[in-house]
């Protein structure tokens, strides 16, 4: 009998712990998982391309399991390449969720967005899943490490990429380049203005 009473008390205690625990637990898993590297050197590479030049072609695997080739959009869509430094870091983890609710600006200008980092596919998969579901492709420039970032001149000396945007027209020509301070997100209006300015 005493065992029964004791078990009941313990059972109630555990039930309360689980209910209270689940009810009040924070939902901030993405924020909690972010690694803060502190303030970094704003720009740590030199561009290998310039406005008016053809954008270097590439094929990279996407987290959706496809291979995306830049030239597949030639004659069809304008392309915005968004390089971000690394998964699970502070500014990067916000930038693409912002673009995720900004699709209309890309659609309005017959453009698509492609996100690229030098992380591997499993890391990108886990990171992007935390953001929800993105409407644009996310590509891994992991191996050979940072080859595409290097071709554009946005591979930093520590193996991460710059926070950079390349605006490419339907002929495959680079029309604008924005290499931001790595510690700062480029404002959305900059992206929208550059999209509108592309011929």
């Amino acid at each position: 009998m005493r065992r029964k009473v004791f078990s009941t008390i313990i059972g109630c205690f555990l039930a309360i712990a689980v209910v209270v625990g689940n009810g009040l637990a924070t939902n901030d898993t993405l924020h909690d998982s972010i690694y803060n590297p502190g303030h970094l050197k704003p720009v740590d590479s030199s561009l290998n391309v310039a406005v008016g030049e053809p954008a270097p072609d590439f094929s990279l695997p996407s987290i959706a399991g496809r291979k995306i080739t830049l030239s597949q959009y030639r004659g069809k869509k304008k392309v915005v390449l968004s390089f971000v430094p690394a998964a699970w870091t502070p500014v990067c983890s916000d930038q693409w969720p912002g673009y995720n609710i900004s699709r209309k600006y890309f659609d309005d200008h017959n453009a698509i967005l492609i996100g690229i980092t030098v992380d591997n596919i499993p890391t990108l998969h886990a990171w992007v899943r935390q953001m929800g579901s993105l409407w644009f492709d996310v590509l891994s420039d992991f191996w050979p490490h940072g080859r595409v970032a290097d071709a554009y001149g946005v591979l930093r000396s520590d193996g991460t990429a710059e926070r950079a945007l390349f605006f490419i027209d339907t002929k495959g020509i680079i029309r604008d380049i924005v290499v931001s301070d790595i510690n700062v997100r480029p404002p959305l209006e900059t992206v929208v203005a550059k999209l509108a300015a592309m011929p």
Partner: protein
Amino acid sequence: MRFIVLHLVLVASFFPSLIVPLVQAAEKAASSKPLPDIVLEIPENPRHKEYLGLAGKNGTDFSIRDIDADILVIELFSMYCPYCQKEAPAVNELYARMREISKNGPVVKIIGLGVANSQFEIDHFRDTYKIAFPLFADEDKKMFKALAGEGTPTFIGCRLKDGERPVIVLRQNGGFASSATFLQELIDKGGAHQ
């Protein structure tokens, strides 16, 4: 004896899930702190101006303490924050409940501060989620820092009573489970019982 030890081990294994939320709850119920004096620009939108009860010229400064409300909620958000995006419909629901309850009860209002967001970005957030209450850009995070913000979304409930120093009565880090419960909690903590 083994039976008791087994049960004690079980309890110990669940201890963190009980203790951590209790600490969080304690933070949420932290005692009232003075509301820092936040200065914003009077919005150009006449509906927002009327909602806040402001009479000055558009574009001139006003203190957050001048807002015509018994209880004010300040939402710290970012257009870029996926949790703020997800929470936006629930916040709209909270705003609708506030409008309703303010007709006959305490006047409860809400404003949003877009942390590290430009005016363009908060306008885009407003348009995307059809937000009817006033949003202000906190581009340099000055207000976020003054309010000791730690992340987004954060909801700060303040009591604004005539003749009394405005105080923070509630701080909710992260989303709320139910707009009705959250509103009731605000009213209770704001000392404005119906």
